[in-house]
């Protein structure tokens, strides 16, 4: 199997196969990262496509080819943030769960009891403020170390770490609230 660096070299010399392989390798990760952050399939598709269009046009500028994944995730995260910002301006707010749960009220959490565990957790994640949600997704879904999470988010490592733990704490608190703990 070719490394990212080899695929990038192939792409830069015009190889369609290498570019397609590179896209195929990361398309799901980009898509699901975007989906977990913005919470909408339609938006996630737009973000994924735009991210790869940017790769197509800007890949030759990437100096460290082995850091392609983190570069791609940075593009994805920036696009996701832009989307959230747009949504926020439209009055949707930062908390994705608003639409789904009808607000972050106690009644909303009561409704969670009848949902499957996975849906529950994803909805709890959606209720987090966007930066906390982003830190949780990058650390748990993408399995990035905090140093990389910070680089992708464009913040300090300590900030990334505190955002992550704050998010986890909040989710567990809400989970406990729902369970009546």
């Amino acid at each position: 199997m070719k490394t990212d660096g080899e695929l990038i070299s192939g792409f830069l010399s015009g190889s369609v196969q290498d570019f397609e392989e590179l896209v195929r390798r990361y398309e799901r990760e980009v898509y699901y990262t975007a989906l977990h952050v913005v919470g909408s399939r339609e938006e996630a598709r737009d973000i994924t496509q735009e991210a790869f269009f940017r790769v197509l046009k800007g890949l030759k500028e990437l100096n460290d080819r082995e850091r392609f994944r983190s570069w791609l995730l940075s593009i994805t995260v920036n696009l996701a943030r832009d989307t959230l910002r747009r949504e926020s301006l439209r009055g949707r707010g930062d908390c994705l769960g608003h639409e789904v749960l009808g607000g972050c009220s106690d009644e909303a959490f009561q409704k969670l009891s009848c949902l499957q565990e996975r849906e529950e957790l994803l909805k709890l994640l959606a209720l987090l403020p966007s930066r906390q949600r982003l830190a949780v997704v990058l650390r748990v879904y993408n399995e990035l170390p905090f140093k990389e999470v910070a680089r992708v988010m464009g913040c300090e490592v300590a900030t990334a770490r505190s955002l992550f733990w704050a998010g986890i704490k909040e989710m567990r608190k809400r989970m406990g609230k729902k369970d009546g703990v």
Partner: protein
Amino acid sequence: MECKDFLRSWERNGKPSFRERLVSLLHRMKCKECREAHSFMVKLSRALKEEGRSDETFFREMRGRLVEEGRGAGILVSEPLPSRPFFAFPRLLVPLGGALLALVLVFFLLRFPSHRTGVSSDYGVYSWDGMVLVSQLNGDELKAFEEELEGAFGNHPSLVYSLSITPWAEVMDQAFANSRFLPSLFMEERSGRMSEKMEEV
């Protein structure tokens, strides 16, 4: 989540070693806080990594659009090859080449048997089961005999091909080495069309 062990396990870079996992497991057995936190993280990780309904169509279309865009912008130039080109399989080429070589060899052996080289003028002709049909023919006689065979068995090429044409010395060697050949030197009759035709020849 005050327990430092749990925090440390999530702040580590890379995968933990077996020893670290064991230590963490033992710690969780006695620390309820860590046990609950760990269980939550495992569930969250599973929930995030479990992919929902497939978006394959979208991915395929997106790749198509990207390639089109790349070609339009002059970034991508090469033509896509079929995913499994026939001749890209070296494993297939080996048996194919072998089969082809064997066919060529068989063709030349049948088309130009050794008597045409003129090394020896004595040949024995016997069927595949070792029965000697005609013996001690010189080159011209053998050629005439072959033509007769072709005329007689033209509609049954498999019968012709089942015959071997061998230098007479070899036939005799084989005959003396294996006594089962000896009776056949007198052209034993065999039932069926082949024997009749042979007699005619």
